[in-house]
């Protein structure tokens, strides 16, 4: 079981309120991602759930049990830290055994769980090494192994992939997703990377300045963002926002259109502009279009290889049903 309910949870450091009262329901077995720009309070929220920070007011219920006053170890949660926080003087085996040793689990049971975790994470041949002799990805797996053996109600991940290089990050992303499918344990994952959020989450929680902007499944957030902030944060490259007469034509203060929902043509279209930078990725090409009279730049995606070049004039046509309309407070109409 791993059902976590936050009720009016509030956190202030002195006079600075980093998390205004906040409610959130996390269901058993869900993969929930907290995402937001840096300083939005997502790590603080995770640390409140973990018990590493005390709530200023409010209640945290884990499996229905009020836990806001419990010390971290009593909450039955396991955490994987950004720096991995492995114990450098202990071998991999002892690192993984440490939480079980603290819980006074029998030696046989400890060995059984270590073997199981090591084989699941491909660590068997590294069990007698020290963390200093491992690569970043291996250390990451040891940190996960140390979390798994406790058989926690939920796993907490604090930006676990941000110290890895790009290729390894994609691999670890898949491994963590697979681990979630296999264990079916609740996982809460903090990241600033919306691609990690989109690819891994069952449910994304978008945060800004300690407030929840929107909660929903990845595609729900992509297709139906509640406000300009979520619209701009989810999706890569960013959604284009257009104000002024063109927005007024659609009865909105601001309209938003994603780069992939604009058709590009060399001969005809609704909007006209000049190509600035063209980013050729092979499968797609992104054009940054200037001088449209709508916004400083409009980003568009064209599929496959496109013959248009820098400085040429192009015509753009937004797909009418994909236009998002926002009122003057930034809320979706």
């Amino acid at each position, binding site marked *: 079981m791993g059902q976590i309910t936050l009720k009016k949870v509030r956190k202030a450091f002195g006079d600075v309120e980093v998390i205004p009262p906040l409610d959130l329901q996390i269901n058993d077995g869900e993969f929930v991602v907290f995402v937001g720009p840096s300083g939005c309070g997502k790590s603080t929220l995770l640390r409140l759930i973990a*018990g590493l920070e005390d709530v200023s007011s409010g209640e945290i219920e884990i499996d229905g049990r009020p836990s806001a006053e419990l010390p*971290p*170890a009593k909450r039955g949660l*396991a955490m994987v*830290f*950004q720096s991995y*926080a492995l114990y450098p003087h202990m071998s991999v085996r002892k690192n993984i055994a440490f939480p079980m040793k603290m*819980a006074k689990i029998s030696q046989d049971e400890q060995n059984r769980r270590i073997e199981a975790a090591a084989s699941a994470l491909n660590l068997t041949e590294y069990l007698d090494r020290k963390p200093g002799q491992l690569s970043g990805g291996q250390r990451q797996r040891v940190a996960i192994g*140390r979390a798994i053996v406790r058989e926690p109600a939920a796993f907490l991940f604090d930006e676990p992939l941000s110290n890895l290089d790009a290729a390894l990050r994609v691999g670890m992303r898949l491994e963590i997703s697979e681990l979630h499918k296999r264990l079916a344990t609740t996982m809460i994952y903090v990241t600033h990377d919306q691609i990690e959020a989109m690819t891994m989450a069952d449910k994304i929680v978008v945060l800004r300045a300690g407030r929840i902007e929107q909660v929903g499944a990845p595609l729900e957030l992509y297709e139906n963002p509640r406000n300009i902030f979520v619209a701009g944060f989810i999706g890569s490259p960013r959604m284009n926002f257009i104000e002024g007469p063109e927005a007024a034509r659609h009865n909105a203060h601001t309209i938003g259109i994603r780069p992939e929902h604009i058709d590009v043509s060399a001969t005809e279209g609704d909007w006209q502009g000049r190509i600035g930078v063209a980013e050729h990725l092979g499968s797609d090409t992104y054009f940054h279009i200037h001088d449209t009279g709508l916004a400083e730049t409009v980003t568009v995606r064209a599929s496959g290889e496109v013959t248009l070049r820098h400085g040429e004039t192009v015509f753009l046509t937004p797909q009418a049903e994909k236009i998002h309309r926002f009122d003057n407070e930034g809320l979706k109409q």
Partner: protein
Amino acid sequence: MATTHARAAARLMISPSVILLLGWMLIPLGMTLYFSVLRYNLLMPGDNPFVGIENYQYFLTDPAFTAALINTLALVVGVLAVTIIGGTLLALLLDQPMWATGIWRILVIAPFFVMPTVSALVWKNMFMNPVNGLFAHLFKSLGLAPFDFLAQAPLFSIIWIVSWQWLPFATLILLTAMQSLDREQIEAAEMDGAGALSRFRHITIPHLGRAATVVVLIETIFLLSVFAEILVTTNGGPGNASTNLTYLVYAESLLRFDVGMGSAGGVVAIILANIVAIFLMRAIGKNLDA
């Protein structure tokens, strides 16, 4: 080959300092070795004949030598134990957030800046004196007979004085080590269910291992040659109760004016210091590897 020339030139240019350093070390060492095989007593002027290992025989069979050897080791081990354990506890205390941290830290570090003779005299006259010392007053106020520390427990008293001087050093090194401990490791241990004592035992102490090694090695170098504290408090007495090797060498050369014997003692001290160094590096040197 430019590099060959450059290397030759480099050797030529560093040679003055190398020669100076070697001379500084080798000439006194050579003269000590030379004097140690002569019968050379300033009270008996005249020939200084070569006597081979006679000085060494007398020095090593002198009952004072065994006593001095044991005292030297007891002094080193005693002070190391007090400073490492006390230093760790003090560092733990100073690492806590509290009021006026800066002032506390300066107070703790202060004894290190007091020169050994002064601190030994302060302890001897103001604290340990059986008539006027603070301890004597304390004992009398409790209705006890004053304890004459320097007469009845001379070695313990000297260990106490030297520990007081070296405690700040150990505290300082261990405190900086403690502050370099990764917060996330402590938090991880907290999540793993380790209480405050387990965290200290399993995370903090292993983390301090390297710093403690540095403290042990550096302090050992200085503690093997403690001298001023003994000279101004007990003069090595009563009897030989607080004589260490350094003091014994001093007594032979400058109280009995026996240069040959003093030199032999010096050579023995060098050899013993090296044995201690090898033993220490074997025992704890691996802590220094990254």
